[in-house]
């Protein structure tokens, strides 16, 4: 194997391969006193979960689900962490500033396109403005974020560690539990995380050298290797630093994204009615929602039309597509076949999948963009490790008290350039009508602000394939609101241990 060898015990496991446990709990602290921080690191260092542990566990779970193992492995509490700019400065990680201006500037509205007006027009508090955020922003500065994962009872399991970190002199400002929803869906009801990229490289686990991302016999295309079909294997340097004290560390973008499920469903139903009127053909609310996402709730992409989108193709097929080009049938190393994919003859209009569909906005795949071609687009991709928070919406009983609870996504994404990766996808693409191709905002997650820095209605062009008509539509509400977040750095486990050396006793004093 002539691939890079990754350090399985030095890299935090949520970066690679990702935790993917039933429950996660994020706990945030403020404090930039270096002594307190080192004490905290001394507490968490022994508990940190590395790549090798996480990948071993994932293999064991996979073996169980495939029927090759008698039981799901029982696993202890996992822990990863990341530091804010104030904390990295306090701990002497000054070279981070040279790596990315975004990390220095922080998650500020002028980089993210977030609302900065603390009040709404009716005088009420604007939850999307960073001063009002639940976590992060100028008021609740996030200096240390702990990311716990477990299969159950996470709140009890984390308590001793959280208490001990608090005792170090850091101020706990936040804690929130995330839980996987049934069928791996997010709160709007769509399967999530389908198109995460893979990573080139091998790692030694238990004395065995293995690929970091599993290969399935997908042939290379245009010089790109693949894990699953449609899962490009990218240079690890896109996600992990490779030199000096930053080695095996990664920037972490954390966004607490509140989702308004009721409004999403109501608005898309209204949109469906108005589009039906305009086109003279019935357009269902489900179809509108699918076009906004670019996939059906089952994960079936619009680029791979099937008779019943509620019955998706296999997990190997649902990411095997480009937007313009056809892809051939595949025969995987398992012998499984994946049917060919056809390109969109009207790709410039978004005939099959809208130009503004979320999955096309953030990953236009084979299409050129304002910032280069498919190579560059792959270079913007991140390792997304998000998990939903809040209770599942009760569509069967809209009056259910549970529906008034807050819910959303704890968006977590690892990368080595926030400005080139997260901010390109977020600010340059989702939040604009023009890029990566002209045609509309990302109606799902994008933000469009007025001059008063409040969220405004977002336009897009609905292309009606049968008639060839283009109809302007508008998402009048903001269905996803950022209500917290920060740009963070997730150091290597080795660096963490060095920092904490000699502080373990003091940590409990």
């Amino acid at each position, binding site marked *: 194997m002539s691939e890079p060898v990754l350090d399985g015990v030095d890299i935090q496991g949520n970066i690679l391969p990702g935790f993917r446990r039933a429950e996660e709990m994020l706990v945030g602290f403020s404090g930039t006193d270096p002594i307190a921080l080192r004490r905290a690191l001394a507490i968490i260092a022994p508990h940190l979960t590395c790549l090798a542990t996480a990948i071993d566990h994932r293999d064991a779970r996979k073996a169980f689900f495939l029927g090759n193992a008698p039981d799901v492995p029982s696993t202890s509490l996992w822990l990863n962490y990341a530091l804010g700019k104030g904390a990295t400065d306090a701990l002497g990680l000054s070279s981070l500033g040279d790596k990315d201006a975004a990390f220095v500037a922080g998650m500020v509205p002028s980089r993210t396109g977030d609302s900065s007006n603390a009040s709404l027009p009716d005088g009420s508090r604007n939850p999307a403005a960073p001063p009002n955020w639940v976590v992060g922003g100028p008021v609740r500065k996030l200096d240390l974020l702990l990311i716990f994962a477990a299969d159950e009872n996470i709140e009890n399991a984390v308590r001793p560690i959280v208490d001990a970190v608090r005792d170090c002199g850091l101020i706990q400002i936040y804690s929130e539990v995330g839980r996987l929803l049934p069928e791996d869906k997010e709160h709007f009801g769509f399967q999530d995380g389908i198109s995460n990229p893979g990573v*080139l490289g091998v790692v030694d686990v238990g004395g065995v050298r293995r690929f970091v991302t599993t290969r399935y016999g997908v042939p290379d295309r245009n010089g790109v290797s693949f894990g699953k079909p449609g899962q490009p294997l990218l240079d690890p340097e896109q996600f992990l630093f490779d030199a000096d004290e930053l080695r095996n560390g990664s920037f972490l973008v954390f966004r607490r994204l509140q989702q308004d499920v009721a409004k999403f469903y109501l608005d898309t139903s209204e949109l469906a009615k108005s589009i039906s009127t305009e086109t003279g053909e019935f357009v269902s609310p489900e179809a509108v929602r699918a076009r906004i996402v670019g996939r059906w709730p089952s994960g079936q992409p619009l680029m791979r039309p099937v008779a019943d989108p509620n019955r998706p193709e296999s997990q190997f097929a649902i990411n095997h597509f480009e937007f313009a080009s056809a892809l051939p049938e595949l025969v995987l190393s398992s012998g499984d076949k994946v049917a060919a994919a056809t390109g969109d003859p009207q790709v410039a209009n978004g005939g099959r999948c809208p130009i503004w569909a979320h999955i096309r906005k953030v990953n236009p795949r084979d299409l050129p963009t304002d910032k280069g071609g498919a190579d560059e687009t792959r270079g913007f991709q991140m390792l997304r490790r998000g998990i939903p928070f809040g209770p599942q919406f009760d569509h069967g009983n809209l009056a259910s008290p549970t529906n008034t609870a807050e819910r959303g996504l704890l968006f977590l994404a690892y990368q080595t350039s926030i400005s080139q990766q997260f901010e390109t996808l977020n600010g340059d693409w989702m939040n604009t009508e023009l890029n990566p191709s002209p045609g509309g905002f990302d109606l799902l997650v994008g933000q469009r602000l007025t001059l008063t820095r409040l969220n405004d209605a977002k336009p897009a062009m609905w292309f009606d394939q049968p008639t060839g008509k283009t109809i302007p539509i508008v998402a009048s509400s903001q269905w996803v609101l950022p209500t917290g977040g920060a740009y963070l750095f997730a150091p290597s486990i080795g660096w963490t241990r060095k920092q904490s050396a000699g502080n373990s006793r003091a940590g409990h004093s």
Partner: protein
Amino acid sequence: MAKFTYTPPGNLDDLAGRASREQFLVNWDQYILKAFRDNIGDLGDDPLFFTEADTPATTPAVRIPWNAFPLSLTRKVGAGVAAWKAADILQSTTGYTPPGAPKVTTQYRPQDEYCEWFAYITPGTTKISRIVFTAEGPEYWIKLAEADLDQVVALYQAYVDPQVKQSDLLLTADLQYDRDTVLAAGTYNPFNIWNTKKGVMHLTHPANTLGAEINLAAVASQTVKDNTGARVTDVRRLVCCAGYGDANRSSDPLIGWNVNTTCVPIAAGGAVLDATLADPVALYMDGLQPGFLTGPSGESLDGWFQFRRGAPGKGLLAVLEAPAGAGFGLDQVLVKGVPLTRGGQIAEIINMVLYAKAKPHTGNAPSLVGCTSHCCMPAGTAPAKIPSTNLNQPRDRNTGLAAPCRNGDVNAYPEITATGAPQKKAAEEASHGVRKTRLGGQ
């Protein structure tokens, strides 16, 4: 119906009220039309590129946007401060020296995405007073100076500096501007000091020309195939194979791909179309991406960026400066939360755009042609590193044919090794080793 004519970029009317206006407009129309006809002629039978002087387009103008900051510099030195600095370092070339003449050195900006800029400093300080961005093709100014040099001087005085004198703008030696055109000593110098070292009026990079835009669009209308006979559609491979533009930019691969796949959609079932560039033919600044420019209190300063020539969507010259009564200057402006120190920071949030149109193709069905060019990279470059590597497109300086990779470089995409004869156009492009325009005489 009125006769179709090509109008000046952005419908500028720089000679309004002057005797020189009428003839200039005629000359401009003829000049652009000739560039279209020359390029269409080079495409052979049944071209997929046309001029609206022959046939009206049937589609509305389609926008093709790209980012104004040079992707090639980001690849070369990394994103951020290093790239912003590199973009401000003037480059020199002797490539415009006429054959047999003593070497003539000219200067240009390494800003190669059809947007160039200059930061003016307040005298006696290190503070930036204004940053000016241009997307104006040099041909327009050469033609304008041919028609009315006095007005060119007046425009420089208005937009660059009141101290500009006519003599500052004139060549002191002949320049071989392209294969067909010699700019004689004593005529307008597109690389004059007020457009290089001391200011900016129009584009200077050898590749930033209107002729290059027309040529690129024309050549890109041809569909090309790799060694196996399969159509090449990958964005960068398409540039390397077809030999138009520069594979290292955001703009050229994007423009070329859009033309190529508009003419012949990649997916089966799409109609074959002929493409053209919409009148007025130009490269434009669409505008500034909103929200990224703020003042010390977080207030939006988007309004500090104003078009002085052209308009939003079709901007040709823009200025970023503090308006009267602002209370503070550019030294307190933040771009994405970072203090403004370089024009490149603004270029990164400028959208460029050009406009294309189409009509149904009525000739024979197009066929795939072999590659006429290839791209080279340093030997040993790992496949995963090719995207972040600037590629070379070597050509023989005399013949214009694709030349072997040099200096130990290897073919970046061996599967699309050049197999066909190069376009006629390639010969003239080769004279300076960069993309160049055909500035045919009237």
